[in-house]
């Protein structure tokens, strides 16, 4: 009895026993995958670019060129570098954790290895903890490696210790939470890209709401709301830490400190892990009889809405739909053209009805010449959210268009037909655009309406006469959307053709979208900013938009052309 107890104690006292062999296996596998070397290189590049931009904007801005002036700016540079790195780490680490764990369990189920794992003495905790920590270990190490750099640079910027340490721990706990949520969702969804899209939407939603509350003044006025937001939302916690470093900034009214936030997030992570532990074995049992039932219907609707995956039409009584027009276009639509037109009209009308209050508030805000305040955030984020949804949806659909055929092994069959590469690419691209048309149309309507309202108010008040740039800006907005559409479809289809897995294609397509956005902010914006003289003039903004639109259009069209030439070369 005593020996057994001693044996059990010595076994459980070993931390590796708690993590089990899965942790070891994950570490081995991670180090062999090329994609993680690519990720680490890209991560270092982004950090380097951020440091360069922080340096250039800190030292180059202003009129002084003397050494003493530049030295006097070092404090500003240090502050910029720390802020850039901490925010970049905070966002990238969470996204990377989502990507790494999006297929952690579903891949095991698809390969049939989960059943094998469950027949071994490995317990559910070891599976869940091993997967989570094994996958995020390298990420956590990357975060830890940057810590001494931040501590050294902190001295230049006179940033408090508290900021660096709090951001590190908030990022750490947020990464674990994002990873555990991603892993939990991978139990519920067959496809990792569904998990990625759901997590992206959840992150954007939670952070978007925080931004609106924060900048809308709610966080500064309501103590309870501010406390709840900071306690449960890592984004708000980093915002709070950042705000506290700026003497003149609006302080949040809440009473939650970063250790309290980190404890709450860790508790949340433990709850998610516990739920995942309970689900692992159940998932294995339910798989042969068709999934987890109706409980996840609401969550399942998210990827269906985002990427438009059709519900299985196995019911015999549903009518057979005949092929009309282009065969490829018909197949890609997944429904008869007439009902597809009807659906697009209905979606457009719904979006238009939702936008009317937005336009009315915009009109009232301008007409009253009042301070925009919270309304400004609403206007800005409404358009941004619409554009983000349209871009992500179009990009994901384009990325799935060929990769899903490869996964379903229908691709060689399709290429065995006399359809030309251009016919296939054109039909798929048109179908992606068609299925997202209401979103893009409402963006166009949004841009034109805003400008028309502004012109109308100026005209009725006879403020400053006829403003030609409103028309020019409307036209450039249209060109910007055209460029963005070409870019997201082009990159999506290119990666769909180049990569074998749909998850890799979606990740690469969304990554390229994010990468281009960062490139715009890091390279193009400072150049245009410099051209504009003392600040962003209307002309420089239009120049920036036109340049961005042109580059996106050219890249998108070139990638579509490249996809057409690659299609028959990358069949298997």
């Amino acid at each position, binding site marked *: 009895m005593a020996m057994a107890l001693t044996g059990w104690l010595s076994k459980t006292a070993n931390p590796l026993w708690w993590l089990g062999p899965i942790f070891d296996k994950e570490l081995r596998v991670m180090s062999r995958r090329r994609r993680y070397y690519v990720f680490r290189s890209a991560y270092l590049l982004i950090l380097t670019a951020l440091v360069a931009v922080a340096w250039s904007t800190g030292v180059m801005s202003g009129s002084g060129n003397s050494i003493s002036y530049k030295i006097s700016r070092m404090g500003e540079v240090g502050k910029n570098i720390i802020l850039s790195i901490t925010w970049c780490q905070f966002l990238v680490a969470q996204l990377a954790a989502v990507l790494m764990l999006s297929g952690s369990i579903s891949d095991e189920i698809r390969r049939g290895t989960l059943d094998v794992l469950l027949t071994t003495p490995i317990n559910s905790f070891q599976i869940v903890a091993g997967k989570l920590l094994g996958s995020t270990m390298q990420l956590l190490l990357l975060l830890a490696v940057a810590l001494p750099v931040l501590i050294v640079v902190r001295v230049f910027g006179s940033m408090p210790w508290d900021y660096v340490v709090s951001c590190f721990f908030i990022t750490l706990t947020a990464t674990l939470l994002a990873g555990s949520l991603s892993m939990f969702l991978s139990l519920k969804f067959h496809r990792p890209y569904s998990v990625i899209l759901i997590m992206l939407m959840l992150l954007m939603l939670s952070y978007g709401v925080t931004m609106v509350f924060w900048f809308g003044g709610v966080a500064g006025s309501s103590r309870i709301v501010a406390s709840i937001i900071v306690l449960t939302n890592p984004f708000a916690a980093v915002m709070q830490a950042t705000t506290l470093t700026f003497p003149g900034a609006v302080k949040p009214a809440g009473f939650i400190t970063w250790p309290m936030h980190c404890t709450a997030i860790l508790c949340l992570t433990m709850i998610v892990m516990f739920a995942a532990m309970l689900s692992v074995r159940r998932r294995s049992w339910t798989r042969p009889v068709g999934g987890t039932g109706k409980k996840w219907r609401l969550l399942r609707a998210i990827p269906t809405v985002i990427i438009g995956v059709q519900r299985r*039409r196995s019911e*015999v009584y549903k009518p057979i739909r*005949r092929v009309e027009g282009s065969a*490829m276009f018909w*197949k890609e639509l997944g429904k008869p053209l007439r009902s597809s037109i009807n659906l697009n009209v209905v979606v457009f009308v719904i979006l238009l009805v939702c936008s009317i209050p937005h336009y009315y508030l915009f009109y009232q805000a301008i007409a009253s010449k009042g301070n925009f305040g919270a309304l400004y955030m609403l206007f800005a984020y409404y358009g941004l959210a619409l554009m983000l949804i349209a871009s992500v949806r179009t990009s994901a659909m384009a990325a799935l268009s060929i990769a899903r055929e490869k996964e379903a092994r229908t691709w060689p*069959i399709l*290429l065995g037909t006399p359809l030309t590469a251009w016919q296939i690419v054109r039909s798929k691209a048109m179908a992606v655009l068609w299925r997202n048309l209401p979103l893009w149309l409402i963006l166009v309507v949004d841009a034109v309406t805003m400008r028309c309202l502004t012109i109308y108010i100026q005209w009725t008040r006879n403020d400053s006469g006829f403003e030609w740039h409103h028309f020019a800006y409307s036209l450039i907005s249209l060109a910007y959307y055209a460029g963005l559409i070409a870019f997201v479809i082009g990159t999506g289809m290119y990666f769909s053709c180049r990569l074998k897995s749909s998850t890799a294609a979606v990740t690469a397509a969304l990554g390229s979208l994010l990468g281009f956005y960062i490139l715009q902010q890091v390279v193009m914006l400072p150049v245009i900013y410099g051209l504009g003289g003392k600040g962003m003039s209307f002309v420089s903004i239009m120049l920036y938009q036109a340049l961005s639109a042109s580059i996106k259009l050219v890249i998108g069209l070139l990638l579509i052309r490249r996809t057409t030439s690659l299609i028959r070369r990358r069949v298997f």
Partner: protein
Amino acid sequence: MIEIKGLGKNYGSLAALADLDLKIEQGDIFGFIGPNGAGKTTTMRILATLLEPTFGTAAIDGLDVTKHGKKVRRMVGYMPDFMGVYDDLKVFEYLEFFAAAFGIERNRRKAIVEGVLELTDLQSKRAFAVDSLSRGMQQRLGLARVLIHDPKVLILDEPASGLDPRARIEVRELLRELKRMGKTIMISSHILSELEEICDHVGIIEHGHLVFSGTMEQIHQRMGIQNEMQVQVGESQRDKAIELLSALPQITDVKVEGSCIRAVLLDGESYDGLIARTLVSGGVDLIMLKPEEVKLDDAFLKLTRGIVH
């Protein structure tokens, strides 16, 4: 109909095909046999215009597959080793989609789809989702799909793999029917016995080389498959039976395996009457006499190991 000359395909440093020569006549069912990784699928993919050869040429009905890809695709029906299905289409929609992809006019499509559904006995499944079909049914659907544009040549990569015995027999019957319709069929498998009943000609490939090509009779001769008779007599009379059998000039060897005696015969004749008469007249009580089944799979193993050349 199909002519391959010096065909080669390299994947980096790995040579999947090396100087392959092959000729298939019109209306033949050609069995393409070889172990896993021998180059069967690569050859078929090249013929289906899905891969480009590194060197050499392949032509179907006189058209080079690399130069006239679109024309070749119109006359070829290719069924890959693993049949992919669109999970959001029904059986009829799936077939009509491919009919449209092959450029068949809308007013002819319905009749053609109904025709191939009837031929493959899938009429009752026309409104079922493709991914709800069983493996056997999906293979039938695959065959229906390759027939939709009435191709002259069918390239079928292991169409019977993963099927139960009943489904295998059904596929075999379907292939016979297609042969009667005058199609040239190239069918791959790594199981020789699966093809011997339906193939006119057989080609055996290993490491990208064709090690044998000919009729089934030629393969028997080439491998020197010996005819054997299995004889069973009473325990006490076994030595006498061996003595009698060994004395016969038509029997080259006599072996004892368990309770049976195995008589290796000189040529292709069975000599069962002679053996029976010899044993009975010699006073041996015969319990069983039957010809030994030729183990073609063993013979195939011999060939692909390079034992027979």
